């Protein structure tokens, strides 16, 4: 019974809190630009509106066009439940759950790309091609980051891996993971969530033809992915295990907020990179994680 309650509580937390993050980022951007900006709860309104709307589907699209976003959303929710939340731990935890988390994200990506290709549109082809290609470098970076945490703690499950801080390599790891967060969630400088020039986008261009409830599911999934990466980043860097539960919860919430403010600031101050530069930046992120791994290896030797 307690288990069910815990699970439901977690789900509510993840599902309800996630759409807040894009609102926070937009707030920060508006503040820097001196605008009033959209309300923090804008995404909630959008989701509620989209959920009620009808769907326009391409004549070419198969049922996979709708099934893809649904499967991707379940995969992302599953990944979220594997992610520990500070002192509360994770809903499910087993040895090797971190690999499952990475591959669930990959499954979500596969489904999004598949659904994008359903329409036979060149734009969505571009977006899907970019998404799956940059993922190669991003996944290399993530697995390296995970390796470094795993070397640090001698463990392969998220709960014990994320309890202490990343140690001496924390700064490197934070920089690497933050870059991956920006890339995986299609933020500036990799992608611009605001642009309407489809040629220059990744995620937005993949969902061009989606509308109504499927689009709502995609947007909600994307916000959960953002929260997931923020939580991972904060827990990898801050020593949650050493704090009291209350302090840890506060640190987690504050950390996520800080990451979002960081994203908002970057989005306000930087321009989007040219696409041919994207691999370079992602390789840098990979190298940062690799150095973090080497530091972790050396660090524990003593």
């Amino acid at each position, binding site marked *: 019974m307690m288990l069910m309650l815990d699970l439901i509580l977690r789900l509510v937390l993840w599902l309800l809190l996630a759409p807040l993050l894009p609102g926070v980022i937009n707030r920060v951007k508006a503040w820097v630009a001196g605008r009033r900006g959209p309300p923090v709860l804008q995404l909630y309104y959008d989701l509620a509106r989209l959920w009620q709307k009808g769907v326009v589907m391409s004549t070419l699209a198969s049922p996979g066009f709708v099934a893809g976003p649904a499967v991707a959303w379940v995969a992302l929710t599953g990944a979220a439940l594997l992610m520990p939340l500070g002192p509360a731990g994770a809903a499910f935890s087993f040895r090797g759950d971190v690999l499952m988390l990475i591959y669930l994200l990959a499954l979500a990506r596969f489904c999004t790309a598949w659904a994008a*290709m359903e329409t036979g549109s060149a734009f969505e082809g571009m977006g899907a091609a970019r998404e799956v290609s940059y993922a190669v470098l991003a996944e290399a970076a993530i697995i390296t980051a995970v390796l470094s945490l795993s070397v640090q703690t001698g463990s392969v499950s998220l709960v014990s891996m994320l309890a202490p801080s990343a140690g001496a390599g924390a700064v490197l790891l934070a920089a690497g993971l933050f870059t991956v967060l920006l890339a995986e969630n299609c933020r500036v400088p990799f992608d611009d969530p605001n642009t309407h020039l489809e040629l220059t986008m990744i995620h937005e261009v993949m969902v061009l033809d989606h509308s109504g409830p499927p689009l709502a599911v995609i947007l909600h999934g994307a916000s959960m992915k953002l929260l997931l990466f923020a939580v991972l980043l904060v827990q990898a860097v801050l020593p949650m295990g050493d704090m009291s539960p209350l302090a840890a919860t506060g640190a987690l919430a504050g950390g996520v907020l800080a990451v979002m403010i960081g994203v908002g600031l970057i989005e306000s101050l930087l321009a989007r990179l040219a696409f041919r530069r994207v691999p370079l930046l992602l390789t840098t992120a990979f190298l940062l994680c690799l150095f973090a791994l080497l530091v972790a290896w050396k660090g524990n030797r003593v």
Partner: protein
Amino acid sequence: MSGPLLLLAFVALVTAILVGVRSSRWWLALTVTGAVAGLIASLTVLLGATDWEWRSELTLGGELIHLRLDGVSALFLALLSVVGGTGGVYAREYWSEQHYPASAPRGRAWWSALVLCMGLVLVSSNGLHFLIGWELFTVCAYFLITLDRRRREVRAAGWLYLAASHAGTVCLFAFFSTLAARTGSWELGPMREQAGLAPLFWLALTGFGVKAGVFPLHVWLPSAHASAPSHVSAILSGVAIKMGLYGIVRFSGWLPVPAAAGWVVIGLGATSALLGIAFALAQNDFKRLLAYCSVENVGVILIGVGAALLAEANGDAPWGRLALAGALLHVWNHGAFKALLFFSAGAVLHATGTREMSKLGGLWRTMPWTAGLFALGAVAVSGLPPLNGFVSEWLVYLGLFDAVTGRGPAAWAAMPAAIMLAMTGALAMASFAKAGAMIFLGAPRTKPAAHAHECGPGMRGPMLVLAGLCVLIGLSPVLFWPAVARAVASWRPAWAAAEAPAPLAMLGSVHVVLAVLMVAAAVWLWRKAHANSVRRGLTWDCGYARPTVRMQYTSASFAGIATGWFRWLLQPERTLRRPRGLFPTEAIRLERVPETVLEKLLGPVSVAVMQVSAAARRLQHGRLQSYVVYVVAGLMALGVLVLLGGAP
């Protein structure tokens, strides 16, 4: 119990070879009987505690017949039975008498012969008989690849396969005969204590590596898989290349290995995985894509085997067991999903007559079953949860991660291998997102693609069986653990363990929950969308009102970004005609990715060898006078040598 079943399988398959030419119905019944008997026999060994062994008084080639079915060989025999049986059913409709009156009867007989010979290789426990079986199965596969021998491309592919296989067989001849000379007998079996035999491992690795298609020995693999009939591609990729892996696993388990073996195998594995999938991504021919993907999966398996060898050298570290179990489970998994993918590729080829993805598209409408099954296979081969590919890759990863946290010297192999495995996974996903999208989604790019037709029940049935296997291994890996653990135990008795590693059960239940929720969510979202109202309209295309099929993204453009990173290896050949003038009429941009190792490396080398030989041949022209001059010149040279040399 295994003995009579194997005898039954043997008799059924021999009869199938004989009647196959005449009657397809009897042939099918006998082949399936043989496959089922083989499957039950191997499962008996895998789930039981004892090996099956049979020593006969009969001799073959002067050697007593000695057969043995232990955990390792039973694992491969089970795979052979499944693919052999389903492939037989598939072949009856795919390569039917109606379409191929000349080659269909021949194909049936060779199919049973191939299954039989591979089975003989798996059970024989004598070096000489192993070699005989090996050679026979190589030849059977050759005749199956060249069933449609009117096409030049097929003959070339068959020839290349035969030549490469024999280059490998030469190494195996050397391996088995040296082994026999050193031990004084052709008998095979565990002989780990004779440390002097260790260097022989390199011969075995090369010989079996050619068959397994390890990069860079994979040169024969893409063209043979692409040109062969699809059911043959399925068994080649699903089972025949696994025979190479069987050899590597078998003899690294029975014989002592050199100290560097683990490092070399894991290095080869990681290279094969990453470069194989890079080649796969660049292909436009979907059967070539699947073939290169086999190189990748062989790499994944070798990473596991290499990690196991490293663990063994490191004082039997427990992570070796996980990695080896992952590798062996991947043998089954790859057999299941790759056969499924080749079967669905065959269905597409059957319906449209082309293997080029840039001529397909939109097939889901006419071929919904094939599209769905291909999608399932694509998820499985990309190693994504909740299907079987993820389970085995997860086990391999777990082995590698434990090697890293164990902090031995092996960590320096495990870390790069894990990172390369992650990149491989992402590239595999890109390849199969591309293949699925180009073949089945969007609008048909050509007429044949628009008029495709779904395959019949004879082809769909085997695909459904294999898809079911993929789902079953994914959702309930614990069910298959005992079999894999048994194989691990017969590879290394010290690693015998009755219980599954705890997280495997957890993984299975998480998979079940995920799978149920995914189906439910998809249905729910579909219903919700239809409850709100669904309007069908043109693809939006940013307001462009008349999109044409040629405006769709193509296979080369989809893969362009990632293949650009591997341009140093892929060496794509370009044909480019830019649009000219004020009113350009025509512009062309063609790109072809050659088999680099074959065309850029082996090709020039063999041309050089041929030139040198041709030059040497000029000395032999049949003119007697010149021969007299050669003899005199030779004698004089000898005389000069003797005079100048002086002292004896």
